């Protein structure tokens, strides 16, 4: 009797060991016999800003081509670019222009996104000038009454190094990152919005698309205009709102046919409604 458990254990181990060996094997990009319909699997990784949009576009593409599966994973622009280069992903998603060191890759412009300054909804301030923004972020101003607001301590909300919105913000106001004296450093846009909504004296900057949607949904934030131009997706589209960034799909120079077809689909007129529904701005091609 006492031998039985040992045999079961052995069997179990065998099952486990055999199970480990057989990894999933997927057929990539097998062309269908008639050649008219696309088949295969596309993997997209990268910017958490682009990921929700790419997922929506992917769903539409899958409906048009039932033989295609599109997987979207978010992990930041850096990951997207690295994955596109190493081939881990067919397409990388980037929320900034390519740097000089990344010129071996090709960027495909999909949409645009603006970065807006946000404050708590109860803050009576209607606009903060560029000099005041610089002063607030580089420790020159500690109270809203120094920049024409109420007597309220300023909580400076900043982003972690490497974030695309941070680069857009620093470039626009010509601030050198080490000179910034932040009170809170946040990760993604939602984290920034929740932080500002929770502190009456806070100021931060996030993606306009996300902020506009949250403000409409009743989150206690207010988007500040820039040089008199309101922070709206419409003004980003018309090019009037200057603090903005491109959203890219990044591939190797000669992407496989399926990836090329998907990119062409995402740049076409017919997906503009999806881009707008995701609070981004379509760009003409």
């Amino acid at each position: 009797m006492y031998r039985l458990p040992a045999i079961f254990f052995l069997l179990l181990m065998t099952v486990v060991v055999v199970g480990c060996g057989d990894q999933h094997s997927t057929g990539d990009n097998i062309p269908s016999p008639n050649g008219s319909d696309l088949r295969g699997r596309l993997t997209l990784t990268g910017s958490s800003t682009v990921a929700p949009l790419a997922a929506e576009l992917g769903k539409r593409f899958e409906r048009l081509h039932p033989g295609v599966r599109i997987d979207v994973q978010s992990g930041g622009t850096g990951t997207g670019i690295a994955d596109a280069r190493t081939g881990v992903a067919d397409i990388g998603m980037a929320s900034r222009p390519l740097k000089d060191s990344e010129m071996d890759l090709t960027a495909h412009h999909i949409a645009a996104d603006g970065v807006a300054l946000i404050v708590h909804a109860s803050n009576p301030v209607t606009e903060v000038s560029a000099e005041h923004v610089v002063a607030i972020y580089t420790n020159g101003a500690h109270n809203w009454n120094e920049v024409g607001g109420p007597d309220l301590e300023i909580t400076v909300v900043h982003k972690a190094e490497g974030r695309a919105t941070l680069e857009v913000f620093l470039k626009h106001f010509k601030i050198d990152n080490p000179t910034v004296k932040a009170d809170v450093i946040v990760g993604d846009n939602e984290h920034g919005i929740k932080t500002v909504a929770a502190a009456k004296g806070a100021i931060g900057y996030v993606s306009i698309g996300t902020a506009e949607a949250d403000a409409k949904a009743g989150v206690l934030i207010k988007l500040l205009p820039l040089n008199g131009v309101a922070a709206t997706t419409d003004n980003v589209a018309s090019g009037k709102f200057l603090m903005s960034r491109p959203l890219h799909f990044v591939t190797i120079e000669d992407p496989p046919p399926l990836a090329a077809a998907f990119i062409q689909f995402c740049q076409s007129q017919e997906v503009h409604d999806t881009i707008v529904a995701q609070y981004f701005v379509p760009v003409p091609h």
Partner: protein
Amino acid sequence: MTPSSPNTLFRFHIDRWLTLITRGAAIISAAVVLLVVAFLAMESWPALRDIGLRRFLTDESWHPLSGSFNLVPMITGTALTTTGALLIAVPLGISSAVFGQFYAPPWMAVWHRRLVELLAGIPSVVFGLWGLVVLVPLLAPLGGSGQSLLAATLVLSLMIVPTIALTSHSALSSVPHELIAGGAALGLQRWAIVWRIALPAGKAGIKTGLLLATCRALGETMAVLMLAGNVPRMPDSVVSPIRTLTANIALEMGYATSEHRAILFVSGLVLLSVVSLFVLVIDFVGGWKNA
């Protein structure tokens, strides 16, 4: 019951196979740790070679994209949040176990234990969200934004209380009944039984709980990220924002490229050293020896 055929040769085979398999499994589980260390060392090697370990401790600030790499504020942040959380959670957790085991009426002990188990099951991101929406605005009047060392420590201690309480509870409940009954027969009061008999007898189990709780506190990322403010600066009060080593990696890894990535792996390597140090300290702290 008749024993099955006494084929000793066959049994020997089984034993031999089991020895091989368990040995293999043991080697694999130990090798995983070594592999992780090797991987961390390999990934961070370019940064260590080009920058040198010393600059990670002596640079002016943490601005990896502008060439300064001081990790000391993050090491301090991790050490402070973990120590603070342990200071709050250890008395709470052990008291909770003692209460459930020796003072509570049976029906209350059962419900108390169920509630603590429920607390253990709450995911860290829920703790983080709760802290951000409820606790942070409450702490804001103390100064600063409310996202601070204090907020992170408080929530972290809530997260490790159930680990300590549950392991201490099972340690105390496995103390042989004869010991307790013997104490009672000698006329000892309840606190003396707890303090002189039950706690010393259960200390091996309690210590394991402490280790698990410490590791959870050191490794916790999401909740701390949402609550600590994450400014990589030495804190000057409990309401100052701090950044932990885990938050440092989580905040920047997604967007980091080439050298920045290697530098973040150094951060991981340092975290691993801090964890080992804490484990060693707990292992050798006076009174917990030979458990």
